[in-house]
Protein backbone atom coordinates (compact mmCIF):
# COMPACT_ATOMS: atom_id res chain seq x y z
CA UNK A 1 0.00 0.00 0.00
CA UNK A 2 1.12 3.58 -0.63
CA UNK A 3 1.75 6.10 2.14
CA UNK A 4 -1.36 7.12 4.08
CA UNK A 5 -2.73 10.54 3.24
CA UNK A 6 -2.29 11.76 6.79
CA UNK A 7 0.09 10.23 9.30
CA UNK A 8 0.47 11.59 12.82
CA UNK A 9 3.13 10.11 15.05
CA UNK A 10 3.18 10.65 18.82
CA UNK A 11 1.53 14.06 18.93
CA UNK A 12 1.68 16.12 22.12
CA UNK A 13 0.04 19.48 22.76
CA UNK A 14 0.83 21.52 25.84
CA UNK A 15 -0.93 24.80 26.61
CA UNK A 16 0.11 27.69 28.80
CA UNK A 17 3.08 28.61 30.98
CA UNK A 18 5.40 25.78 31.97
CA UNK A 19 4.51 25.82 35.66
CA UNK A 20 0.74 25.62 35.10
CA UNK A 21 0.58 23.97 31.72
CA UNK A 22 -2.25 21.82 30.44
CA UNK A 23 -1.02 18.66 28.77
CA UNK A 24 -4.04 18.46 26.48
CA UNK A 25 -2.84 15.87 23.95
CA UNK A 26 -0.63 13.11 25.30
CA UNK A 27 1.10 11.20 22.56
CA UNK A 28 -1.47 10.12 20.02
CA UNK A 29 -0.70 8.46 16.67
CA UNK A 30 -2.99 7.73 13.75
CA UNK A 31 -3.19 7.34 10.00
CA UNK A 32 -5.90 8.13 7.47
CA UNK A 33 -5.85 6.56 4.02
CA UNK A 34 -7.15 8.34 0.93
CA UNK A 35 -10.94 8.34 0.83
CA UNK A 36 -11.20 7.06 4.40
CA UNK A 37 -12.92 8.53 7.48
CA UNK A 38 -11.31 8.40 10.87
CA UNK A 39 -13.49 9.54 13.73
CA UNK A 40 -12.05 10.72 17.01
CA UNK A 41 -14.67 10.41 19.75
CA UNK A 42 -14.58 11.54 23.33
CA UNK A 43 -16.22 13.73 25.94
CA UNK A 44 -15.80 17.48 25.92
CA UNK A 45 -12.36 18.59 27.07
CA UNK A 46 -10.47 15.41 26.19
CA UNK A 47 -8.28 17.19 23.61
CA UNK A 48 -10.10 16.60 20.31
CA UNK A 49 -10.06 20.19 19.12
CA UNK A 50 -6.42 20.62 20.10
CA UNK A 51 -5.60 17.54 18.03
CA UNK A 52 -7.34 18.91 14.94
CA UNK A 53 -5.87 22.38 15.33
CA UNK A 54 -2.42 20.85 15.81
CA UNK A 55 -2.70 19.07 12.46
CA UNK A 56 -3.85 22.30 10.76
CA UNK A 57 -1.08 24.30 12.40
CA UNK A 58 -3.73 26.58 13.92
CA UNK A 59 -3.09 26.07 17.63
CA UNK A 60 -3.62 29.11 19.85
CA UNK A 61 -0.56 31.24 20.55
CA UNK A 62 -0.08 29.77 24.01
CA UNK A 63 -0.06 26.14 22.83
CA UNK A 64 3.03 24.14 21.88
CA UNK A 65 3.06 21.16 19.56
CA UNK A 66 5.54 18.29 19.66
CA UNK A 67 5.56 15.12 17.61
CA UNK A 68 7.67 12.50 15.93
CA UNK A 69 6.21 13.63 12.63
CA UNK A 70 3.06 14.76 10.90
CA UNK A 71 3.00 14.04 7.20
CA UNK A 72 0.66 14.46 4.29
CA UNK A 73 1.16 12.15 1.32
CA UNK A 74 4.46 11.11 2.85
CA UNK A 75 5.80 14.69 3.10
CA UNK A 76 6.53 16.02 6.57
CA UNK A 77 4.60 19.15 7.48
CA UNK A 78 5.46 19.44 11.16
CA UNK A 79 8.63 21.43 10.52
CA UNK A 80 7.05 23.95 8.17
CA UNK A 81 6.92 27.65 8.96
CA UNK A 82 3.49 29.22 9.38
CA UNK A 83 3.90 30.82 5.98
CA UNK A 84 4.72 27.51 4.27
CA UNK A 85 1.88 25.88 6.18
CA UNK A 86 -0.55 28.53 4.94
CA UNK A 87 0.28 27.43 1.38
CA UNK A 88 -1.13 23.99 2.28
CA UNK A 89 -4.15 25.12 4.30
CA UNK A 90 -7.18 25.25 2.08
CA UNK A 91 -5.28 23.55 -0.72
CA UNK A 92 -4.28 20.15 0.75
CA UNK A 93 -6.17 20.15 4.00
CA UNK A 94 -9.21 22.17 4.99
CA UNK A 95 -11.28 22.51 8.11
CA UNK A 96 -14.92 22.81 9.10
CA UNK A 97 -15.64 24.20 12.55
CA UNK A 98 -18.26 23.59 15.18
CA UNK A 99 -19.93 27.00 15.24
CA UNK A 100 -21.40 27.92 11.87
CA UNK A 101 -22.93 31.05 13.41
CA UNK A 102 -19.58 32.68 14.12
CA UNK A 103 -17.24 30.98 11.67
CA UNK A 104 -18.10 33.31 8.80
CA UNK A 105 -17.07 36.94 8.73
CA UNK A 106 -20.24 39.01 9.27
CA UNK A 107 -19.19 41.95 7.09
CA UNK A 108 -18.47 40.13 3.82
CA UNK A 109 -20.83 38.32 1.48
CA UNK A 110 -20.84 34.55 1.19
CA UNK A 111 -19.55 34.92 -2.36
CA UNK A 112 -16.66 37.10 -1.31
CA UNK A 113 -15.57 34.62 1.35
CA UNK A 114 -15.90 31.61 -0.94
CA UNK A 115 -14.08 33.21 -3.85
CA UNK A 116 -11.30 34.47 -1.63
CA UNK A 117 -10.49 30.89 -0.62
CA UNK A 118 -10.18 29.92 -4.28
CA UNK A 119 -8.13 32.90 -5.34
CA UNK A 120 -5.67 32.43 -2.50
CA UNK A 121 -4.38 29.23 -4.09
CA UNK A 122 -5.22 30.06 -7.71
CA UNK A 123 -3.89 33.60 -8.08
CA UNK A 124 -3.65 33.32 -11.87
CA UNK A 125 -7.23 32.14 -12.34
CA UNK A 126 -9.62 34.26 -14.38
CA UNK A 127 -12.08 36.42 -12.47
CA UNK A 128 -15.12 34.35 -13.31
CA UNK A 129 -13.51 31.05 -12.32
CA UNK A 130 -13.76 31.60 -8.58
CA UNK A 131 -17.39 32.62 -8.89
CA UNK A 132 -18.23 29.66 -11.10
CA UNK A 133 -16.53 27.34 -8.63
CA UNK A 134 -18.47 28.89 -5.74
CA UNK A 135 -21.80 28.44 -7.52
CA UNK A 136 -20.89 24.87 -8.47
CA UNK A 137 -20.01 23.94 -4.90
CA UNK A 138 -22.97 25.71 -3.32
CA UNK A 139 -25.18 23.59 -5.56
CA UNK A 140 -23.15 20.52 -4.60
CA UNK A 141 -23.78 21.15 -0.90
CA UNK A 142 -27.48 21.44 -1.60
CA UNK A 143 -28.05 25.18 -1.60
CA UNK A 144 -30.71 26.30 -4.04
CA UNK A 145 -30.55 29.57 -5.96
CA UNK A 146 -26.80 29.48 -5.45
CA UNK A 147 -25.87 32.52 -7.52
CA UNK A 148 -28.26 34.72 -5.52
CA UNK A 149 -26.90 33.36 -2.24
CA UNK A 150 -23.47 34.63 -3.18
CA UNK A 151 -24.64 38.18 -2.57
CA UNK A 152 -26.08 37.41 0.85
CA UNK A 153 -24.42 38.00 4.18
CA UNK A 154 -23.94 35.29 6.82
CA UNK A 155 -26.58 36.74 9.16
CA UNK A 156 -29.19 36.23 6.45
CA UNK A 157 -28.68 32.45 6.50
CA UNK A 158 -29.74 29.80 9.00
CA UNK A 159 -27.20 27.72 10.93
CA UNK A 160 -27.67 24.71 8.68
CA UNK A 161 -27.15 26.79 5.55
CA UNK A 162 -24.08 28.42 7.01
CA UNK A 163 -22.58 25.03 7.77
CA UNK A 164 -23.22 24.03 4.15
CA UNK A 165 -21.43 27.21 3.08
CA UNK A 166 -18.53 26.27 5.36
CA UNK A 167 -18.35 22.85 3.71
CA UNK A 168 -18.41 24.43 0.25
CA UNK A 169 -15.66 26.79 1.38
CA UNK A 170 -13.52 23.91 2.57
CA UNK A 171 -13.91 22.26 -0.84
CA UNK A 172 -13.07 25.36 -2.93
CA UNK A 173 -9.52 24.31 -3.75
CA UNK A 174 -10.19 20.58 -3.89
CA UNK A 175 -8.34 19.48 -0.75
CA UNK A 176 -7.43 15.85 -0.04
CA UNK A 177 -8.26 16.00 3.65
CA UNK A 178 -11.15 17.63 5.48
CA UNK A 179 -10.96 18.04 9.22
CA UNK A 180 -14.44 18.47 10.65
CA UNK A 181 -14.47 19.44 14.33
CA UNK A 182 -17.95 18.70 15.68
CA UNK A 183 -19.54 19.90 12.44
CA UNK A 184 -23.09 19.12 13.53
CA UNK A 185 -23.00 19.74 17.29
CA UNK A 186 -24.56 23.21 17.00
CA UNK A 187 -27.35 22.07 14.68
CA UNK A 188 -30.83 20.60 15.05
CA UNK A 189 -31.08 16.83 14.93
CA UNK A 190 -32.75 16.74 11.49
CA UNK A 191 -30.19 19.14 10.05
CA UNK A 192 -27.42 17.05 11.67
CA UNK A 193 -28.45 14.01 9.70
CA UNK A 194 -28.59 15.98 6.45
CA UNK A 195 -25.13 17.45 6.95
CA UNK A 196 -23.64 14.05 7.77
CA UNK A 197 -25.19 12.49 4.70
CA UNK A 198 -23.87 15.39 2.64
CA UNK A 199 -20.34 14.89 3.98
CA UNK A 200 -20.51 11.19 3.13
CA UNK A 201 -21.74 11.87 -0.40
CA UNK A 202 -19.09 14.46 -1.02
CA UNK A 203 -16.46 12.09 0.31
CA UNK A 204 -17.40 9.47 -2.26
CA UNK A 205 -17.62 12.00 -5.07
CA UNK A 206 -14.31 13.76 -4.40
CA UNK A 207 -12.43 10.83 -2.82
CA UNK A 208 -11.87 12.85 0.36
CA UNK A 209 -10.18 11.74 3.51
CA UNK A 210 -12.07 12.96 6.55
CA UNK A 211 -10.99 13.40 10.13
CA UNK A 212 -14.33 13.62 11.91
CA UNK A 213 -14.23 14.87 15.46
CA UNK A 214 -17.27 14.32 17.64
CA UNK A 215 -18.44 13.61 21.16
CA UNK A 216 -21.39 11.59 19.81
CA UNK A 217 -20.79 7.93 19.06
CA UNK A 218 -24.13 7.84 17.26
CA UNK A 219 -22.64 10.05 14.56
CA UNK A 220 -19.58 7.85 14.29
CA UNK A 221 -21.73 4.80 13.67
CA UNK A 222 -23.18 6.41 10.56
CA UNK A 223 -20.03 7.86 9.03
CA UNK A 224 -16.69 6.46 10.12
CA UNK A 225 -14.49 3.71 8.70
CA UNK A 226 -12.12 3.83 11.65
CA UNK A 227 -12.67 5.04 15.18
CA UNK A 228 -10.34 6.34 17.88
CA UNK A 229 -11.84 6.79 21.32
CA UNK A 230 -10.08 9.58 23.17
CA UNK A 231 -9.96 10.09 26.89
CA UNK A 232 -7.91 12.62 28.89
CA UNK A 233 -5.59 13.40 25.99
CA UNK A 234 -4.93 9.79 24.98
CA UNK A 235 -6.46 7.24 22.65
CA UNK A 236 -7.93 4.53 24.85
CA UNK A 237 -9.31 2.37 22.05
CA UNK A 238 -8.87 2.26 18.29
CA UNK A 239 -10.10 0.02 15.54
CA UNK A 240 -12.42 -0.19 12.59
CA UNK A 241 -15.94 1.04 13.27
CA UNK A 242 -17.12 -2.56 13.19
CA UNK A 243 -14.55 -3.71 15.74
CA UNK A 244 -15.17 -0.85 18.13
CA UNK A 245 -18.96 -1.08 17.95
CA UNK A 246 -19.31 -4.85 17.91
CA UNK A 247 -16.57 -5.74 20.37
CA UNK A 248 -15.66 -2.70 22.45
CA UNK A 249 -12.78 -3.64 24.72
CA UNK A 250 -12.40 -0.55 26.88
CA UNK A 251 -14.88 0.19 29.70
CA UNK A 252 -15.00 3.83 28.60
CA UNK A 253 -16.06 2.87 25.07
CA UNK A 254 -18.82 0.73 26.58
CA UNK A 255 -19.93 3.71 28.66
CA UNK A 256 -20.12 5.90 25.57
CA UNK A 257 -22.06 3.24 23.67
CA UNK A 258 -24.57 2.98 26.48
CA UNK A 259 -25.05 6.74 26.28
CA UNK A 260 -26.22 6.68 22.66
CA UNK A 261 -29.91 7.51 22.55
CA UNK A 262 -31.84 4.71 20.88
CA UNK A 263 -34.81 5.78 18.78
CA UNK A 264 -38.01 4.45 20.36
CA UNK A 265 -36.21 3.22 23.46
CA UNK A 266 -34.78 6.42 24.88
CA UNK A 267 -37.32 9.06 25.75
CA UNK A 268 -36.92 12.32 23.82
CA UNK A 269 -35.21 14.81 26.10
CA UNK A 270 -34.87 12.08 28.72
CA UNK A 271 -31.68 11.60 30.66
CA UNK A 272 -28.99 9.56 28.96
CA UNK A 273 -27.02 6.92 30.71
CA UNK A 274 -24.11 9.26 31.35
CA UNK A 275 -20.89 7.90 32.75
CA UNK A 276 -20.65 8.94 36.41
CA UNK A 277 -17.66 10.91 37.69
CA UNK A 278 -15.53 13.59 36.08
CA UNK A 279 -12.61 13.71 33.68
CA UNK A 280 -9.26 14.07 35.46
CA UNK A 281 -7.52 17.42 35.27
CA UNK A 282 -5.03 17.53 32.42
CA UNK A 283 -2.69 19.82 34.34
CA UNK A 284 -1.15 16.97 36.29
CA UNK A 285 0.94 13.99 35.55
CA UNK A 286 -1.57 11.15 35.57
CA UNK A 287 -0.58 8.13 37.64
CA UNK A 288 -2.26 4.89 36.70
CA UNK A 289 -5.21 4.55 34.34
CA UNK A 290 -6.84 7.91 33.60
CA UNK A 291 -10.28 6.25 33.75
CA UNK A 292 -9.63 4.68 37.16
CA UNK A 293 -11.97 6.93 39.18
CA UNK A 294 -14.94 6.22 36.91
CA UNK A 295 -14.39 2.61 35.95
CA UNK A 296 -16.66 -0.16 37.21
CA UNK A 297 -14.11 -2.86 36.38
CA UNK A 298 -11.18 -1.22 38.12
CA UNK A 299 -8.87 -3.27 40.29
CA UNK A 300 -6.30 -1.73 42.66
CA UNK A 301 -3.54 -2.48 40.17
CA UNK A 302 -5.12 -0.07 37.68
CA UNK A 303 -4.04 2.90 39.81
CA UNK A 304 -0.35 2.16 39.32
CA UNK A 305 2.08 3.01 36.55
CA UNK A 306 1.04 3.94 33.06
CA UNK A 307 -1.34 1.66 31.21
CA UNK A 308 0.27 0.65 27.93
CA UNK A 309 -1.52 0.20 24.64
CA UNK A 310 -2.33 -3.38 23.73
CA UNK A 311 -2.24 -3.80 19.95
CA UNK A 312 -3.32 -7.28 18.88
CA UNK A 313 -3.36 -6.32 15.20
CA UNK A 314 -2.41 -3.25 13.17
CA UNK A 315 -4.85 -0.43 13.93
CA UNK A 316 -6.77 -2.37 16.60
CA UNK A 317 -5.73 -1.39 20.11
CA UNK A 318 -6.92 -0.61 23.65
CA UNK A 319 -5.39 0.88 26.75
CA UNK A 320 -6.79 -1.20 29.61
CA UNK A 321 -5.59 -3.83 32.07
CA UNK A 322 -8.97 -5.58 32.25
CA UNK A 323 -10.50 -5.21 28.78
CA UNK A 324 -13.77 -6.84 27.81
CA UNK A 325 -12.57 -9.51 25.41
CA UNK A 326 -14.93 -12.41 24.89
CA UNK A 327 -18.21 -10.84 25.86
CA UNK A 328 -20.14 -9.02 23.15
CA UNK A 329 -21.22 -5.45 23.79
CA UNK A 330 -24.63 -4.75 25.27
CA UNK A 331 -25.19 -2.22 22.61
CA UNK A 332 -28.53 -0.64 21.96
CA UNK A 333 -29.18 -1.23 18.30
CA UNK A 334 -27.81 1.94 16.90
CA UNK A 335 -25.71 -0.32 14.71
CA UNK A 336 -26.94 -3.07 12.51
Amino acid at each position, binding site marked *: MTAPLLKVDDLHVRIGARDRQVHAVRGISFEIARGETLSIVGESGCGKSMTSLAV*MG*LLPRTARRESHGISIDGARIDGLSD*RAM*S*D*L*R*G*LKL*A*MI*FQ*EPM*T*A*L*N*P*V*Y*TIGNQLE*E*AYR*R*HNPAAARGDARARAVYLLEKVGITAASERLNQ*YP*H*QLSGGLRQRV*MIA*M*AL*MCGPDLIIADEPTTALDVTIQAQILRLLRDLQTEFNLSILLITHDLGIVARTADKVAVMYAGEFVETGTAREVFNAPAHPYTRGLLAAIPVPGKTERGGKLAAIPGTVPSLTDHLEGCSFFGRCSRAVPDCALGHVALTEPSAGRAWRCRRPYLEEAAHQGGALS
Partner: protein
Amino acid sequence: MMVYALKRAVLGLAIMLTISMAVFALTNIASDPAIAIAGEGATATDVEAVRQRYGFDRPVVERYAEWLGHAVRGDFGMSYRQQRPVARVVLERFPVTFTLACLALGFSLALALPLAMFAALWPNSMIDRFAVLTALVAQAVPTFWLSLLGILVFSVELGWLPVSGSTSFVHYILPAACLGFFAMPAILRLTRAGLLEVLEADYIRTARAKGLRTPTILVKHALRNAIIPVVSIASVQFGYLLSGSVIVETIFAMQGIGYLAWESVSSADLPVVQALVLVTAFFYVLLTLFADILNAWLDPRIRIA
Protein backbone atom coordinates in the same frame (compact mmCIF):
# COMPACT_ATOMS: atom_id res chain seq x y z
CA MET B 1 -29.56 51.58 3.02
CA MET B 2 -31.52 54.64 1.80
CA VAL B 3 -34.28 53.99 4.29
CA TYR B 4 -31.74 53.70 7.07
CA ALA B 5 -30.01 56.94 6.07
CA LEU B 6 -33.35 58.73 5.86
CA LYS B 7 -34.37 57.56 9.32
CA ARG B 8 -31.10 58.82 10.72
CA ALA B 9 -31.49 62.16 8.96
CA VAL B 10 -34.95 62.70 10.45
CA LEU B 11 -33.57 61.89 13.89
CA GLY B 12 -30.75 64.39 13.33
CA LEU B 13 -33.27 67.06 12.40
CA ALA B 14 -35.22 66.46 15.59
CA ILE B 15 -32.03 66.78 17.60
CA MET B 16 -31.20 70.04 15.86
CA LEU B 17 -34.60 71.48 16.71
CA THR B 18 -34.16 70.57 20.36
CA ILE B 19 -30.73 72.15 20.45
CA SER B 20 -32.04 75.33 18.85
CA MET B 21 -34.65 75.60 21.59
CA ALA B 22 -32.05 75.05 24.27
CA VAL B 23 -29.76 77.65 22.75
CA PHE B 24 -32.54 80.19 22.52
CA ALA B 25 -33.75 79.47 26.03
CA LEU B 26 -30.27 79.78 27.52
CA THR B 27 -29.52 83.12 25.91
CA ASN B 28 -32.98 84.69 26.19
CA ILE B 29 -34.66 83.27 29.24
CA ALA B 30 -31.91 82.23 31.63
CA SER B 31 -30.23 85.62 31.32
CA ASP B 32 -31.58 89.01 30.33
CA PRO B 33 -29.93 89.97 27.08
CA ALA B 34 -31.00 93.60 27.45
CA ILE B 35 -28.94 94.00 30.60
CA ALA B 36 -25.96 92.39 28.92
CA ILE B 37 -26.15 94.69 25.92
CA ALA B 38 -26.80 97.86 27.89
CA GLY B 39 -23.58 97.15 29.69
CA GLU B 40 -22.36 97.87 33.20
CA GLY B 41 -23.59 101.03 34.85
CA ALA B 42 -26.66 101.34 32.68
CA THR B 43 -29.78 102.78 34.24
CA ALA B 44 -33.15 101.06 34.22
CA THR B 45 -34.30 103.42 31.44
CA ASP B 46 -31.27 102.49 29.33
CA VAL B 47 -32.09 98.80 29.71
CA GLU B 48 -35.74 99.42 28.81
CA ALA B 49 -34.66 101.33 25.69
CA VAL B 50 -32.44 98.44 24.61
CA ARG B 51 -35.25 96.01 25.29
CA GLN B 52 -37.61 97.87 23.00
CA ARG B 53 -35.04 98.50 20.31
CA TYR B 54 -34.11 94.81 20.01
CA GLY B 55 -37.70 93.62 20.55
CA PHE B 56 -36.94 91.74 23.79
CA ASP B 57 -40.33 92.86 25.17
CA ARG B 58 -42.30 90.56 22.86
CA PRO B 59 -43.47 87.04 23.93
CA VAL B 60 -40.73 84.39 24.04
CA VAL B 61 -42.48 81.95 21.68
CA GLU B 62 -42.96 84.61 19.07
CA ARG B 63 -39.32 85.67 19.32
CA TYR B 64 -38.16 82.04 19.08
CA ALA B 65 -40.26 81.37 15.98
CA GLU B 66 -38.93 84.50 14.34
CA TRP B 67 -35.36 83.75 15.30
CA LEU B 68 -35.60 80.15 14.04
CA GLY B 69 -37.23 81.28 10.81
CA HIS B 70 -34.32 83.58 10.18
CA ALA B 71 -31.75 81.09 11.36
CA VAL B 72 -32.73 78.37 8.88
CA ARG B 73 -32.29 80.94 6.15
CA GLY B 74 -28.82 81.70 7.45
CA ASP B 75 -29.79 85.00 9.01
CA PHE B 76 -28.53 85.15 12.59
CA GLY B 77 -28.90 88.91 12.95
CA MET B 78 -26.16 91.46 13.47
CA SER B 79 -23.13 91.03 15.64
CA TYR B 80 -23.41 93.56 18.51
CA ARG B 81 -19.67 93.93 18.63
CA GLN B 82 -18.74 94.02 14.96
CA GLN B 83 -21.99 95.50 13.60
CA ARG B 84 -21.83 93.03 10.68
CA PRO B 85 -24.13 90.10 9.81
CA VAL B 86 -23.38 87.19 12.15
CA ALA B 87 -23.51 84.67 9.32
CA ARG B 88 -20.62 86.41 7.58
CA VAL B 89 -18.57 86.68 10.76
CA VAL B 90 -18.98 82.96 11.47
CA LEU B 91 -18.58 81.81 7.89
CA GLU B 92 -15.26 83.53 7.36
CA ARG B 93 -13.90 81.86 10.48
CA PHE B 94 -15.25 78.40 9.83
CA PRO B 95 -12.73 77.12 7.26
CA VAL B 96 -9.85 77.67 9.68
CA THR B 97 -11.41 75.50 12.38
CA PHE B 98 -12.63 72.91 9.93
CA THR B 99 -9.15 72.55 8.42
CA LEU B 100 -7.62 72.42 11.86
CA ALA B 101 -10.02 69.73 13.11
CA CYS B 102 -9.63 67.63 9.96
CA LEU B 103 -5.86 67.79 10.13
CA ALA B 104 -5.96 66.97 13.83
CA LEU B 105 -8.21 63.95 13.25
CA GLY B 106 -6.03 62.83 10.36
CA PHE B 107 -2.97 63.17 12.57
CA SER B 108 -4.48 61.15 15.42
CA LEU B 109 -5.75 58.42 13.05
CA ALA B 110 -2.38 58.19 11.30
CA LEU B 111 -0.72 57.74 14.68
CA ALA B 112 -3.32 55.59 16.42
CA LEU B 113 -4.29 53.03 13.75
CA PRO B 114 -0.86 51.58 12.84
CA LEU B 115 0.22 51.66 16.48
CA ALA B 116 -2.95 49.84 17.54
CA MET B 117 -2.52 47.28 14.78
CA PHE B 118 1.02 46.36 15.73
CA ALA B 119 0.12 46.39 19.42
CA ALA B 120 -2.76 43.98 18.85
CA LEU B 121 -0.68 41.74 16.62
CA TRP B 122 2.00 41.33 19.27
CA PRO B 123 0.33 41.82 22.65
CA ASN B 124 2.69 42.54 25.56
CA SER B 125 5.56 43.17 23.16
CA MET B 126 7.72 46.31 23.28
CA ILE B 127 5.56 48.02 20.67
CA ASP B 128 2.40 47.17 22.59
CA ARG B 129 3.83 48.66 25.77
CA PHE B 130 4.96 51.71 23.83
CA ALA B 131 1.44 52.14 22.43
CA VAL B 132 -0.22 51.84 25.82
CA LEU B 133 2.27 54.26 27.35
CA THR B 134 1.76 56.77 24.52
CA ALA B 135 -1.99 56.66 25.05
CA LEU B 136 -1.51 57.19 28.78
CA VAL B 137 0.79 60.18 28.29
CA ALA B 138 -1.43 61.73 25.62
CA GLN B 139 -4.37 61.37 27.96
CA ALA B 140 -2.60 63.01 30.87
CA VAL B 141 -0.99 65.98 29.12
CA PRO B 142 -3.25 69.05 28.91
CA THR B 143 -3.58 70.56 25.43
CA PHE B 144 -2.53 74.05 26.49
CA TRP B 145 0.63 72.73 28.11
CA LEU B 146 1.51 70.66 25.05
CA SER B 147 0.84 73.65 22.83
CA LEU B 148 3.15 75.88 24.84
CA LEU B 149 5.81 73.16 24.90
CA GLY B 150 5.46 72.74 21.14
CA ILE B 151 5.87 76.48 20.60
CA LEU B 152 8.94 76.54 22.84
CA VAL B 153 10.64 73.63 21.09
CA PHE B 154 9.64 73.90 17.43
CA SER B 155 9.08 77.63 17.09
CA VAL B 156 11.35 79.35 19.59
CA GLU B 157 14.28 76.94 19.93
CA LEU B 158 14.40 75.25 16.52
CA GLY B 159 12.61 77.96 14.55
CA TRP B 160 11.01 75.39 12.23
CA LEU B 161 7.40 76.44 12.62
CA PRO B 162 5.64 79.79 13.07
CA VAL B 163 4.51 80.75 16.55
CA SER B 164 1.03 81.96 15.68
CA GLY B 165 -1.44 82.84 12.96
CA SER B 166 -3.42 80.87 10.40
CA THR B 167 -2.33 82.27 7.05
CA SER B 168 -0.50 79.28 5.54
CA PHE B 169 -0.35 75.51 5.80
CA VAL B 170 2.74 75.49 8.03
CA HIS B 171 0.77 77.49 10.57
CA TYR B 172 -1.52 74.50 10.98
CA ILE B 173 1.11 71.83 11.64
CA LEU B 174 1.80 72.48 15.29
CA PRO B 175 -1.78 73.28 16.40
CA ALA B 176 -3.15 70.28 14.51
CA ALA B 177 -0.57 67.99 16.08
CA CYS B 178 -1.31 69.30 19.59
CA LEU B 179 -5.03 68.99 19.06
CA GLY B 180 -4.74 65.59 17.40
CA PHE B 181 -2.53 64.23 20.16
CA PHE B 182 -5.39 64.94 22.53
CA ALA B 183 -7.84 62.88 20.46
CA MET B 184 -5.43 60.02 19.86
CA PRO B 185 -5.68 57.91 23.08
CA ALA B 186 -9.37 57.09 22.74
CA ILE B 187 -8.94 55.95 19.14
CA LEU B 188 -5.76 54.02 19.91
CA ARG B 189 -7.20 52.21 22.88
CA LEU B 190 -10.48 51.35 21.20
CA THR B 191 -8.82 50.07 18.03
CA ARG B 192 -6.33 48.01 20.00
CA ALA B 193 -9.00 46.48 22.23
CA GLY B 194 -11.28 45.90 19.25
CA LEU B 195 -8.56 44.20 17.25
CA LEU B 196 -7.51 42.02 20.18
CA GLU B 197 -11.08 40.84 20.51
CA VAL B 198 -11.65 40.38 16.79
CA LEU B 199 -8.41 38.43 16.35
CA GLU B 200 -9.81 35.84 18.74
CA ALA B 201 -12.99 35.51 16.69
CA ASP B 202 -13.93 32.28 14.98
CA TYR B 203 -13.99 33.86 11.53
CA ILE B 204 -10.34 34.83 11.89
CA ARG B 205 -9.56 31.15 12.50
CA THR B 206 -11.64 30.32 9.42
CA ALA B 207 -9.62 32.82 7.42
CA ARG B 208 -6.40 31.19 8.60
CA ALA B 209 -7.79 27.74 7.82
CA LYS B 210 -8.30 28.91 4.23
CA GLY B 211 -4.59 29.65 4.08
CA LEU B 212 -4.92 33.44 3.96
CA ARG B 213 -1.76 35.33 4.87
CA THR B 214 -1.47 37.42 8.02
CA PRO B 215 -1.57 40.88 6.33
CA THR B 216 -4.77 39.96 4.46
CA ILE B 217 -6.34 38.61 7.62
CA LEU B 218 -5.36 41.67 9.62
CA VAL B 219 -6.48 44.30 7.15
CA LYS B 220 -9.40 42.63 5.40
CA HIS B 221 -10.94 40.46 8.09
CA ALA B 222 -9.90 41.98 11.40
CA LEU B 223 -9.61 45.73 10.87
CA ARG B 224 -12.94 46.19 9.14
CA ASN B 225 -14.73 44.57 12.07
CA ALA B 226 -12.64 46.31 14.70
CA ILE B 227 -13.05 49.72 13.10
CA ILE B 228 -16.85 49.82 13.39
CA PRO B 229 -16.93 51.10 17.00
CA VAL B 230 -13.94 53.32 16.20
CA VAL B 231 -15.94 55.20 13.56
CA SER B 232 -18.49 56.18 16.18
CA ILE B 233 -15.84 57.25 18.67
CA ALA B 234 -13.94 59.17 15.98
CA SER B 235 -17.00 61.26 15.23
CA VAL B 236 -17.40 62.02 18.92
CA GLN B 237 -13.70 62.86 19.05
CA PHE B 238 -14.20 65.22 16.14
CA GLY B 239 -16.76 67.04 18.26
CA TYR B 240 -14.23 67.25 21.09
CA LEU B 241 -11.72 68.60 18.60
CA LEU B 242 -14.09 71.40 17.71
CA SER B 243 -14.42 72.35 21.36
CA GLY B 244 -10.72 71.73 22.01
CA SER B 245 -9.99 74.17 19.23
CA VAL B 246 -11.09 77.03 21.51
CA ILE B 247 -7.93 76.50 23.55
CA VAL B 248 -5.59 75.79 20.68
CA GLU B 249 -6.85 78.60 18.48
CA THR B 250 -6.55 81.05 21.34
CA ILE B 251 -2.98 80.00 22.10
CA PHE B 252 -1.89 80.05 18.47
CA ALA B 253 -4.03 83.13 17.66
CA MET B 254 -5.72 81.34 14.77
CA GLN B 255 -8.74 83.14 13.35
CA GLY B 256 -11.14 80.20 13.71
CA ILE B 257 -14.51 79.82 15.39
CA GLY B 258 -12.89 78.70 18.62
CA TYR B 259 -11.10 82.03 18.86
CA LEU B 260 -14.29 83.78 17.78
CA ALA B 261 -16.24 82.02 20.51
CA TRP B 262 -13.75 83.18 23.09
CA GLU B 263 -13.95 86.79 21.81
CA SER B 264 -17.74 86.77 21.61
CA VAL B 265 -18.33 85.29 25.03
CA SER B 266 -15.99 87.77 26.67
CA SER B 267 -17.80 90.67 24.99
CA ALA B 268 -21.35 89.28 25.39
CA ASP B 269 -21.90 89.25 21.64
CA LEU B 270 -25.05 87.21 21.98
CA PRO B 271 -26.11 86.62 18.35
CA VAL B 272 -22.63 85.36 17.50
CA VAL B 273 -22.58 83.01 20.49
CA GLN B 274 -26.00 81.68 19.52
CA ALA B 275 -24.96 81.13 15.95
CA LEU B 276 -21.72 79.45 17.00
CA VAL B 277 -23.43 76.99 19.30
CA LEU B 278 -26.00 76.25 16.65
CA VAL B 279 -23.51 75.81 13.84
CA THR B 280 -21.25 73.63 15.98
CA ALA B 281 -24.20 71.52 17.03
CA PHE B 282 -25.38 71.27 13.45
CA PHE B 283 -21.95 70.17 12.40
CA TYR B 284 -21.83 67.64 15.18
CA VAL B 285 -25.18 66.16 14.18
CA LEU B 286 -24.04 66.03 10.57
CA LEU B 287 -20.92 64.20 11.66
CA THR B 288 -22.84 61.64 13.69
CA LEU B 289 -25.09 61.09 10.71
CA PHE B 290 -22.05 60.56 8.54
CA ALA B 291 -20.59 58.09 11.06
CA ASP B 292 -23.87 56.16 11.20
CA ILE B 293 -24.02 55.88 7.44
CA LEU B 294 -20.36 54.89 7.24
CA ASN B 295 -20.99 52.18 9.83
CA ALA B 296 -24.01 50.92 7.93
CA TRP B 297 -21.81 50.66 4.88
CA LEU B 298 -19.11 48.81 6.86
CA ASP B 299 -21.50 46.46 8.64
CA PRO B 300 -24.26 44.77 6.67
CA ARG B 301 -25.97 43.74 9.92
CA ILE B 302 -26.83 47.41 10.46
CA ARG B 303 -27.76 47.96 6.83
CA ILE B 304 -29.87 44.84 6.26
CA ALA B 305 -31.95 44.26 9.34
